[in-house]
């Protein structure tokens, strides 16, 4: 299977007015579709910075990062996030003014999918993540954390991409919901053929991954291939 993401000796330096902080150094790795990758490490080790680079929210200060064979500096990174890569976070980050259903329909609206079709597909995605339809009309603040994270995953599915990036997706969840989300992420990779990259320091999440990387002081190493 082809590599959807390939990092070549990338580095990243945070530069403030007064100081430079090296967050990543010489990171080289690759990610394929159909697998779950876990990137573990302590807080401040650089895993979230790496995920931001993979999401195209920033670009490496050193090295090259290829997305589907194209260097990330040369592609439209907004279009990349709209069509190819979705990101879910520990804090869920759903649109607070949109209902559950509208949140899932949102990416399809950006892709100009007709409203009726978007609604039908949103129903399907929400059903896939196991959310009861009684919640579709609710606002995000009216449902539980586990439910919100499932909506976030459904929204990621709705964008129709190939990459799912998750930053501590179970960080705010209890063990029962944590298990559900881990299962869903596995399904995304194995059934929906996504490259799922999860940044976590949760051992259970890492255990469920197909490949585990460890991040230490900005350097990435393979823990389990």
């Amino acid at each position, binding site marked *: 299977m082809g590599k959807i993401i390939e990092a070549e000796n990338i580095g990243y330096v945070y530069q403030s007015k007064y100081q430079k902080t090296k967050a990543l150094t010489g990171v080289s790795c690759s990610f394929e579709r159909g697998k779950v990758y876990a990137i573990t490490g302590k807080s401040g080790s650089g895993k979230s910075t790496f995920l931001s680079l993979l999401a195209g*929210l920033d670009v490496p200060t050193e090295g090259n990062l290829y997305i589907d064979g194209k260097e990330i500096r040369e592609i439209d990174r*907004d*279009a990349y*996030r709209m069509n190819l890569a979705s990101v879910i976070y520990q*804090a869920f*980050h759903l649109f607070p003014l949109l209902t559950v259903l509208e949140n899932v329909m949102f990416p399809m609206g*950006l892709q100009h999918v007709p409203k009726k079709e978007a609604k039908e597909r949103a129903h399907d995605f929400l059903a896939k993540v196991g959310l009861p339809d009684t919640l579709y009309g609710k606002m995000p603040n009216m449902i539980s954390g586990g439910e919100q994270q499932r909506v976030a995953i459904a929204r990621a599915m709705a*964008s129709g991409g190939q990459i799912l990036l998750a930053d501590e997706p179970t960080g705010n969840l209890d063990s029962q919901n944590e298990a559900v989300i881990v299962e869903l992420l596995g399904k995304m990779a194995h059934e929906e053929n996504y490259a799922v990259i999860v940044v976590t320091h949760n051992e259970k999440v890492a255990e469920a991954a197909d490949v585990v990387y460890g991040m230490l002081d900005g350097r990435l190493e393979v823990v389990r291939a």
Partner: protein
Amino acid sequence: MFDYVKCSLRRRKAANLVTVGISVMLVLLLNLYFGSIDSYQTQLRELSENVPIFCQVTNLNGTMGNELFISEQIVEALEQSGQVKDLSYMTVMMAGEGDFKEAEYSKYLNLYVAGANNVEALAEMTDDMFSLDAQSLNELLASDRMECIVNENVLKKRGWEIGDRITLKCYYYDPASEFGKIEIHPMGGTVEVTIAGTMEDAGGKTSAIQNDIIIPGRAAWNLFAQFGLKFFAGTVTFHVKDPMDLNGFKEEMQEIGLKEIIPEADTSYTGYALVVRDADFIASATHLRHSIELLQSFLPVVCILVLLIGYVVSYLAGNSRRAEFALMRLQGVKKVPAAFLFLTEQILLVLAGNVVGDVLVAPVVSSLPGILAVNGVLLTAYLIGAAAAYGRMSRGSVVYLLSMQQ
């Protein structure tokens, strides 16, 4: 994308109401401010109508305003002056009915005749005291027709009727008379006048001398000319046409030959001084000008205040949407469209506030340019604030904005 704006307008009720409410309040306040200036300016413009400046030709020491000798040249110059309006003049003569010998003047010379160019010239007489309607009366007095209005008692006593032509032998007061020794002389012949109407006998009703016969001012003027005499008016009053140009008016009056009152001058019958009753007008105009200047001096402060409020409200509203902006960016929406979306929402709310404010002030403020100016100032203020907020937001890192929400 615009569905998001619709949802936001529908669901952020409290925040949106605050924005709309502040816009309404600012529209009201600005209209109150500009409306006050406009009202004062209107009052100033209409001051000449509401507080007209009355002028009267007097003798040099200002002790007499009636029964004077005011030269033909002065009356003519005032008639032609662009600085004068509502000119009223009246001349007085004596007459006897029919042609009689001069030696018998004491027997026949018993009619007081006045030539007046309008009703205002006839001291203390009003339209309702005449048998003619106001329009016909004024048309007659403004004309040079040899027609007259006769005191109803005189009419009855002499057996005259409306439509009769009567013959009068007229005498004029000699302008060369010494003070206290008025002389009268025959004009030189008789004239025929048609009775066009009557007037009430005002005996006791007014303090003015009751005239027996009134002829049009211009007819009286022609009468003097007919007998080779220089016309003179006994009374001349008028209003200043443009009170805002009082200096120009006074200069022209000097050129005409009218002087300022000299209280210590000798009393005479010659009318060539001018009393200008402008104290009330000047006081009112000065007060209004001061009020306008005071209000206008606050204009920069008001503008800055409005800009500041608009900016701050917009900025705060913009800042409260940072997480949503970051989420949009995370979903792949570009910076400009994302910022534009929130800006559109903000503009719609401000416009709604402006419209509500305009509707509220419309019954009071009739000036469309004023309303547009207020809306323009407010929209500019809000746009600057919103542009600053969203500009700052779009420069920020998405990860940072998301982490702040987290």
